[in-house]
């Protein structure tokens, strides 16, 4: 799990989507399914965290820009 922290959002998402695909194929043995599910949930959490982080960064950029500059992104768009 620890090394999964270093994978990118896209890699994590790809893995997650592979898991979903497998699960949706339907022939997955129960124990395997729950194992996949468990891994999927972890990846999901990872992605979620990354998204959260990105959101925070964006908010920060906007805030910083808003403080430092007279022009704001929203107005310009």
């Amino acid at each position, binding site marked *: 799990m620890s090394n999964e922290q270093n994978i990118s959002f896209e890699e994590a998402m790809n893995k*997650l989507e592979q898991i979903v695909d497998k699960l949706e194929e339907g022939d997955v043995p129960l124990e395997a399914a729950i194992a996949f599910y468990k891994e999927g949930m972890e990846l999901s959490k990872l992605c979620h965290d990354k*998204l959260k982080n990105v959101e925070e960064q964006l908010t920060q950029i906007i805030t910083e820009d808003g403080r430092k500059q007279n022009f704001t992104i929203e107005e310009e*768009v």
Partner: protein
Amino acid sequence: MQEKKYLSVIALTKYIKRKFDADPHLQDVHVRGEISNFKQHSSGHMYFTLKDDKARILAVMFSSQSRAMKFSPENGMKVVVKGDISVYEPSGQYQIYIKEMRPDGIGELFLAYEQLKKRLESEGLFSIEQKKPIPSYPKTVGVITSPTGAAIRDIITTIKRRYPIANILVLPALVQGENAAPSIARAIEKANKMDEIDVLIVGRGGGSIEELWAFNEELVARAIFQSLVPVISAVGHETDFTIADFVADMRAPTPTAAAELAVPHIDELMERLLQRKTRMLQSMSGRYRYEKQRLDRAQRSYAFRYPQRLYEQKLEHVDKLTELLVRGASRLMDVKKGQHETIHKRLVRNHPRIALREAESRFDRSQKDMGRAMIQIFLKKQTQFEKVISTLQALSPLKIMDRGYSLVYSEDNVLIKSINQVRENEPLQIQLTDGSLLCNVTNIKESENRE
């Protein structure tokens, strides 16, 4: 036999010569003929052949006779001669010894004139380059002519009338007859020696060709040519030119005309002086006016009248450049700002918010799909299980007991199907539909109707 007496050649020749010399018909013979084979020796003696269509005779003219002759014989020239016939002993030839010879037909004087003119001309005595200029203002005018007669009077009066400040020096000379030519030549030489004469008038009044002959003599021509003092010829003969006329530095048709050519007229001089003064004044005042205009022009020039133009235009240029500088800087700023603005807009347009939203939805979808798939798997398995269970339960052999049957098991859980499996007092387990009974075998009875 009597010996014949022989003559010597010279004796014979002398005899013949005597015959010729004694014959009066062979003395002072006049003969007409044409000259050929003409030879003149350095001694001046002339040797030639006198011939006509049918015959020829050798001719000799000694220099003592030819000297007085005014013309020079040439081959082909037709002449009339007077002479004696004699024999030249050494060659035994008879010949005519000419005493006088004249051209046949044309006049002797004319021929002499033509011959001399031709010769002197070829020698260059007439050439323009040799002519000396006549001084404009002669102090002394020499006059070579006869001191008596009209010519001298005309010359003197004319000079005195025209130019009274000139000296007149008369050099008397014979102007006619045998001695005229040497006399004139001498006078010219004398005039040259005097060193005070500025111009010479040489001449005489009009007359026949014979009277004027001295002026056609070579002697006179050469004297005129050699004169250092400029010579004006004045032979009173309006139509024909004498040799002197050709050689002279200037030719006048009459003595009066010569005097007019020799000196200027005092009135003309006065007029000339006035004219020169006027011309000097004109050129001076013209010059002054020109220079003054030139100076005025320079002073009036734009550069001097409006010196401020020297810097005004430049000032305008500086202002214009300064304006362009400000505009250029401003435009540069505009360009840079424009560039920045464009790129900034592009940046903002690419805000990652959209990417974020996509990622979020992708994430949500995956998460949901995974949950749904998992639950489906779970439910499927559960359903499968429940189905099997219910079938199993439906097939349960224990359902026979519901009708009152029971199952008997031995102590070691073996189903008892025969009495033979059991002994008395052996504990057995009887299984009923709603429970089991633990029993002991008290009696064993074998069935009778069993086969």
